[in-house]
């Protein structure tokens, strides 16, 4: 399944419906779809906030592929080059007083995805991700 998102936060709101169609076609457990939705929401939100430069050509391209025990997906965007694997670690042990909002999105992505690789090629950030779902 291929999805294209324009640079508009409302596009992220389309994900649940789009992923439901993907799930129905592939008989996937709802918990896995929720994790997939979360990873895509966090990555897309991050790109829209920090990566895109506000042009008409801003695009996110997502390819989803179901394997017997995992979902393989590629998340591409043509925003500023940025490797989310190098984002600073979130302070998840800090007490309430020291917690500042933000920074948790990419932390969630890195914790929930079972594998992630990043490359920048031909003007596109490309992330290849794997989400396992039988080995739980």
């Amino acid at each position: 399944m291929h999805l294209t998102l324009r640079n508009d936060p409302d596009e992220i709101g389309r994900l649940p419906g789009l992923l439901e169609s993907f799930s129905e076609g592939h008989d996937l457990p709802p918990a896995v779809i929720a994790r997939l939705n979360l990873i895509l929401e966090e990555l897309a939100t991050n790109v829209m906030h920090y990566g895109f430069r506000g042009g008409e050509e801003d695009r996110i391209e997502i390819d989803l592929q179901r394997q017997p025990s995992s979902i393989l997906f590629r998340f591409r965007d043509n925003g500023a080059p940025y490797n989310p694997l190098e984002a600073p670690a979130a302070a998840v042990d800090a007490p309430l007083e020291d917690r500042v909002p933000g920074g948790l999105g990419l932390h969630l992505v890195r914790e929930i995805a079972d594998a992630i690789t990043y490359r920048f090629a031909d003007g596109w950030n490309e992330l290849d991700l794997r989400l396992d779902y039988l080995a739980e």
Partner: protein
Amino acid sequence: MEIIEEKHDNALVCRLAGRLDGQTSAEATARLAASQAEAAGKPILLDLSELDYLSSAGLRVILVAAKSAKAAGSRLSLCAPTPEVKEILDISGFGSILPIHASREEALADA
């Protein structure tokens, strides 16, 4: 997303139903601020039993509400998250910044 308020003797319970994400976070922040004003210092308990989905935008809503409760001399706690939502709270270390009770009964007994 829906937020249903229920007044108890020792706490104001807000039942969050649906999705707490980037699409609903602004409205939820405003609703919880209003609930907090109404609670007038009473502890606030967020019942998550009907919350289907939580992303970092939703975690921010909870963090902001917890901080503002603390600043007002009150406190905010959570109860009854589904396994999926609990996983997100755990990964984010929220168990170390606010009480997360397994059930509403347990939470109200502790309020």
